[in-house]
């Protein structure tokens, strides 16, 4: 009770603080040379209040205060403490409050970390960021307050959907939001810099660390969601091209493109229009992501809210922001005049630019696949869905040139590069094709495409390895990230080609087999846990006369009443053995699905490597300064 009130009133006070920030910013913008310290102070107060408000909600969850509607809807007294806390952001209202925390945190960090820069630029960034912050405040207080009262006070809550009660998913939203909201700073700062015509090499160096930080968080956030989907949803896949996943992938694609554009801007001060457009797009897509996931348009497990008013608010707000940014872009932006035409075909920037176009193509494919069903439903009320074949068909062939340019690009110089001394690239390419030919030879699917695709991935793989030895620490960040990407593509491809599975309905004591392995259902045990009943199956898998024991679980949760399957996974460096068990219609039969998934762990390792590349880049720069 008390925590909710504290939370609610500090939220309102936080909104009120926006006015002094606005007032002092505008006053300071015209007058003095130095930044008014009051702006920083008030930004800090605002951050402080929002954090208090957030903790108000966290404590309401921890103490199971069911007079609070959000707590009532999403928590339960028997839930473990960890999931009570993570339940705070596992819902629409709480996750928006978390957005606000990060928004205010980032603008405060921006203020204290941008000391050497132009005063007017800093103030304008604060102003733009405040517009976003106020929007979120109003949205939270007006249409999705996390602090609504219920009377009479219920004695028990409705509980959190058990498949969301999971460590990976508990930290997935905060990490993802750090990435999403980081793009808001990029957005505000790009608008400020455009207005003041301040886009320059210096500015690029300064904004690069924000881009890198958001990019790392976004990458890790997507990975966490994907790991969760892998072991919790029980299909053995890690990416389903579900709209909810696509929505997080789209900002990532744009942010990656932006990162590379900023590198060019930093080195050659060209492509500033690209940088502006990409920054605006990233933020727009992040907002759209929140909108699509939280408004109930996408029918998926992430949809907790089903309120058109909320969707309408975010859409209107987004529309206004886009209008403002387009206006600023068209009115204030002056295109780079210095040596903008000196593009040579063989240069680092050309290869980056070509891959940027590929990225934009991938983005359009994902965007169309995600949005088209929604539009069709609204316009013709035809219900359709677009599955993985659509994405695979349109994306996979274009990965080939994409990978090749990724390998060649770093080998070229800026501005102009010759062909001399590049024979080794051809040699590596031919070797890669040969290796991939011998790997693919024994499989029967799509022989030609697979050979070339795996060949290109190997090409990138070997050129980056060669660079580790030749260039040592020079460009190590880029090299690690590109190496990670080649590893990612290779593991995904091998995972797809060499996976095998066996599905059967079994009773206890029965067994089944195919030409590779035999599955024996040994026994089934029942346990009573704190908030669920547990059925643990015990299976023997016999392959090449080696026996593995796997114990998948079925959990019957009491509140809410939901059955979930917990996969049992045996991970090794080479393959994952994955088994799930489902109830079939309350009979004695259980539906068993056993899968062998090669190179699964390398998918996660390679994503970690990609983010590590970003991390090194972030700190290397600071160190060198």
């Amino acid at each position, binding site marked *: 009770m008390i925590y909710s009130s504290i939370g609610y009133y500090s939220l309102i006070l936080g909104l009120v603080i926006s006015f002094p920030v606005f007032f002092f910013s505008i006053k300071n913008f015209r007058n003095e040379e130095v930044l008014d310290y009051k702006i920083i102070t008030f930004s800090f107060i605002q951050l402080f209040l929002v954090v208090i408000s957030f903790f108000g909600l966290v404590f309401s969850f921890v103490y199971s205060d069911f007079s609070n509607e959000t707590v009532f809807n999403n928590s339960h007294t028997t839930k473990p403490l960890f999931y009570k806390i993570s339940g705070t952001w596992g819902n629409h209202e709480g996750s928006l409050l978390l957005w606000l925390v990060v928004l205010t945190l980032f603008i405060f960090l921006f203020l204290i970390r941008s000391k050497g820069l132009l005063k007017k630029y800093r103030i304008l960034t604060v102003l733009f960021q405040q517009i976003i912050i106020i929007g979120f405040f109003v949205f939270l207080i007006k249409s999705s307050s996390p602090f609504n009262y219920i009377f009479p006070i219920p004695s028990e809550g409705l509980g959190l*959907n058990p498949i969301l009660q999971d460590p990976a998913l508990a930290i997935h939203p905060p990490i993802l939001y750090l990435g999403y909201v980081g793009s808001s700073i990029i957005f505000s700062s790009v608008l400020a810099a455009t207005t003041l015509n301040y886009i320059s090499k210096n500015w690029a160096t300064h904004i690069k660390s924000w881009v890198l930080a958001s990019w790392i968080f976004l990458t890790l956030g997507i990975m966490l969601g994907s790991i969760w989907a892998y072991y919790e*949803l*029980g*299909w053995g896949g890690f990416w389903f091209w579900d709209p909810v996943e696509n929505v997080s992938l789209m900002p990532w694609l744009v942010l990656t493109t932006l990162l590379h554009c900023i590198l060019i801007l930093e080195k050659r001060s060209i492509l500033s229009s690209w940088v502006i457009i990409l920054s605006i797009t990233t933020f727009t897509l992040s907002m759209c992501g929140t909108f699509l996931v939280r408004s109930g348009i996408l*029918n*998926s*497990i992430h949809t907790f809210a089903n309120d058109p008013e909320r969707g309408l608010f975010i859409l209107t707000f987004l529309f206004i922001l886009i209008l403002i940014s387009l206006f600023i872009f068209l009115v204030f932006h002056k295109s780079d005049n210095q040596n903008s*035409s000196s593009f040579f075909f063989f240069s680092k920037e050309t290869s980056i630019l070509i891959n940027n*176009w590929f990225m934009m*193509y991938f983005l*359009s*494919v994902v965007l*169309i696949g995600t949005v*088209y069903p929604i539009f069709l439903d609204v316009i013709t009320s*035809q*219900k*359709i*869905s*677009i*599955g993985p*074949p*659509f994405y695979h*068909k*349109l994306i996979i062939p274009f990965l080939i040139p994409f990978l090749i340019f990724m390998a060649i690009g770093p080998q070229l110089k800026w501005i102009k590069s010759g062909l001399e001394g590049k024979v080794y690239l051809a040699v590596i390419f031919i070797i890669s094709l040969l290796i991939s030919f011998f790997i693919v030879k024994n499989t029967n699917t799509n022989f030609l495409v697979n050979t070339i695709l795996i060949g290109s991935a190997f090409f990138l793989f070997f050129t980056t390895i060669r660079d580790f030895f030749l260039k040592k620490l020079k460009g190590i960040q880029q090299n690690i990230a590109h190496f990670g990407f080649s590893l990612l593509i290779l593991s995904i491809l091998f995972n797809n080609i060499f996976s095998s599975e066996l*599905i*059967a*309905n*079994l009773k206890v004591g029965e067994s*089944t087999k195919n030409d590779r392995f035999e599955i024996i259902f040994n026994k089934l045990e029942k346990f009573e846990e704190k908030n669920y009943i547990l059925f643990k199956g015990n299976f023997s898998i016999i392959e090449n006369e080696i026996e593995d024991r796997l114990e998948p679980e*079925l959990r019957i949760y009491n509140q*809410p*009443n*939901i*059955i*979930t*399957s917990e996969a049992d996974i045996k991970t090794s460096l080479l393959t994952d053995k994955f088994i*799930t068990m*489902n*109830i*079939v*219609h*309350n*009979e004695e*039969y259980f*539906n068993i*699905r056993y899968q062998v998934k090669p190179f699964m762990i390398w998918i996660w390792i390679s994503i970690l490597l990609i983010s590590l590349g970003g991390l090194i880049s972030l700190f290397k720069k600071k160190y060198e300064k």
Partner: protein
Amino acid sequence: MYGRKVKLRFLFIILVLISLILSVFLVLKSLEENVVYFKSPSDIQLLSEVKNKKIRVGGMVKEKSIQIKSNKVNFVITDFKNEINVTYSGVVPNLFSEGKGVVAEGYLKDKSFFEASKILAKHDENYMPPEVKAALESK
């Protein structure tokens, strides 16, 4: 004649245009091929021909219709007006049971027989897929 620069730029623009047109064509074509339409059992009765194309069928699992064999599950999907027999081999979601909503993806063999390759799982006990709700309400 035009200068080299103009020629290059012209070439560049043509290249961009061609690749744009190509990619739009590609996207549209594979959209057409890969879109999966949602039908209710009654919609299926109205079809003029049975095409060999992947679709989704949604409705309620008819009471007392589930039959389980060692590698197969047979059941009937109904929208209380028309119904269709479904056969499926694969993983059944935990919430799949009689009298609950279901969405099956697969191929029509004829107007009363459907071979499913996937049964969609993402719902809790109170949740009904929007398509199923619409299919049931419109009858």
